[in-house]
């Protein structure tokens, strides 16, 4: 991301206006976007690899931010009344955070929901009965909750997350003709 500080502060929309000087000075790198400082932290266009996310979960920055708790514990939703409505459809629209209070996963760009990132996925599985925690509890937006479900299902398919399998009962007479 290239922060353009050229004397006057350009607004976000104006930044996209092409001028001759832009064409001369822009790099060949297509990923670099011209944004102002205020909205830089709201960009979510970078594809961060899973390995980075897994390293982040073991880092000091993560532990100071979240303590030993799951990432959704210290998140608080904003709504009127006692009973929370359904969580929003998505926090991220057009590669940008579209809300001031994004859900626990969207707000931290290094939390990637992937079947290999077992440490993160396990935070959303109840330690008491093995069920996936509902959005009423975790506060995830609907798209992230769906991604979470897919990631957990895939992790269980690969055997990275263990669970209690239903007991298979055998009728020995099927296999032993006496």
């Amino acid at each position, binding site marked *: 991301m290239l922060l353009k500080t050229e004397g006057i502060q350009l607004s976000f929309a104006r930044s996209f206006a092409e001028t001759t000087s832009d064409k001369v000075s822009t790099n060949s790198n297509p990923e670099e976007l011209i944004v102002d400082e205020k909205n830089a932290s709201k960009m979510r266009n970078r594809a961060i690899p899973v390995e980075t996310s897994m390293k982040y979960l073991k880092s000091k920055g993560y532990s100071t931010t979240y303590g030993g708790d799951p990432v959704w514990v210290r998140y608080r939703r904003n709504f009127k009344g006692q009973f929370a409505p359904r969580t929003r459809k998505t926090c991220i629209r057009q590669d940008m955070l579209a809300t001031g209070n994004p859900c626990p996963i969207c707000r931290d760009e290094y939390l990637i929901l992937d079947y290999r990132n077992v440490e993160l996925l396990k935070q959303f599985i109840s330690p008491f*009965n093995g069920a996936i925690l509902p959005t009423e509890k975790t506060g995830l937006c609907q798209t992230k909750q769906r991604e979470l479900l897919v990631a957990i299902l895939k992790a269980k398919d690969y055997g990275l997350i263990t669970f*209690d399998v*239903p007991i298979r009962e*055998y009728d020995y007479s099927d296999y032993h003709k006496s």
Partner: protein
Amino acid sequence: MATRAAMFTFSKFRYFPILKHRVAKFSVSSNLLNASALEPGYSRDPGEVFFKENVQTLLERLTGRDCDKVFHNRKLGERLEPPKYELLTQAEVDHVMAEMEVKLKRKLQMPPLLKERDPIKKIYSFNPELQGFDDSKYVFINISQGITNRNREVVVRDPNGVLREASWEERQRMCQIYFPVPGRKINVPKMFEEGNIQNCLDRDEFEFVLDRACAQFDPDDPEYISVTRKTYDFVDENTKYTSLRPTRHFGPMVLHLVLSKKMDNLLFHFINTKDIDAAANLVRLFHTVADDTSPTEVDEFQLIENYIQGPALKKPALELAWQSFLEIEKQRREVHSQQNNASN
């Protein structure tokens, strides 16, 4: 043929065409090794041995009955309820304990150890006039109640006109669609592929792998045999028997080790942990499997001694362990007799 057609018309049956590109999945076996039961040195057909009464009792005794482990809390995604406390008379307590015995037996039922099944090859008829009726095969299944899935008729009409019995994979897939077994997926989970199993075993998740294999496959499925053997051999090489000891899988594992002549590590483990009953039962099992004899020695120490001197393969290690155990036993008896004398 006429009788079979009559049978189908009386009972309900359903069919649906299976897309051609999925045909390949049924016929190609997985990338796991397809070793036959006798290849890695099984001395006998396990199916003969496993179901014998004396073998079953020996295996049950070896498994033991750790009720805490067997009845541990299972996380099945259900709504949790607080535990109930009841005041019962002795008769009611006995009744409840009897019920618990039945439940224990069910939970500790051992999955059968069998040899690989032969592929199904039966062809009912060949009608070349039907060639090219469709570009996919049709699979028919008899969904009447009252028959087990093993005996259910599943029949396939190929596009080249052949009417044959469905292969094992096709059978399993159809039966799973209409009579689903809990815990079984229609497509084989990726966990059972080469690299992924090893990952699970390295994390010591033996019971999980075996439970899932039991749910996913039938006991004579080549994939099931391959997965279970891999797990048993891994546990044996790394001597991690304690995690599997109170489970239903310990019996089949022991029988596998005895049949493939790898029981010495286990015997070593029993001697080191001073579990002489288990060691003696293991030796008795060896004799039962080897030549159907039950050994005449009543004394367990003598029994184990004879085995170590005789048919054992890892004699040096076993002898050393046995000698050290005997010394410890002797010292223990001396101390015990001294205590008795002192108290008298």
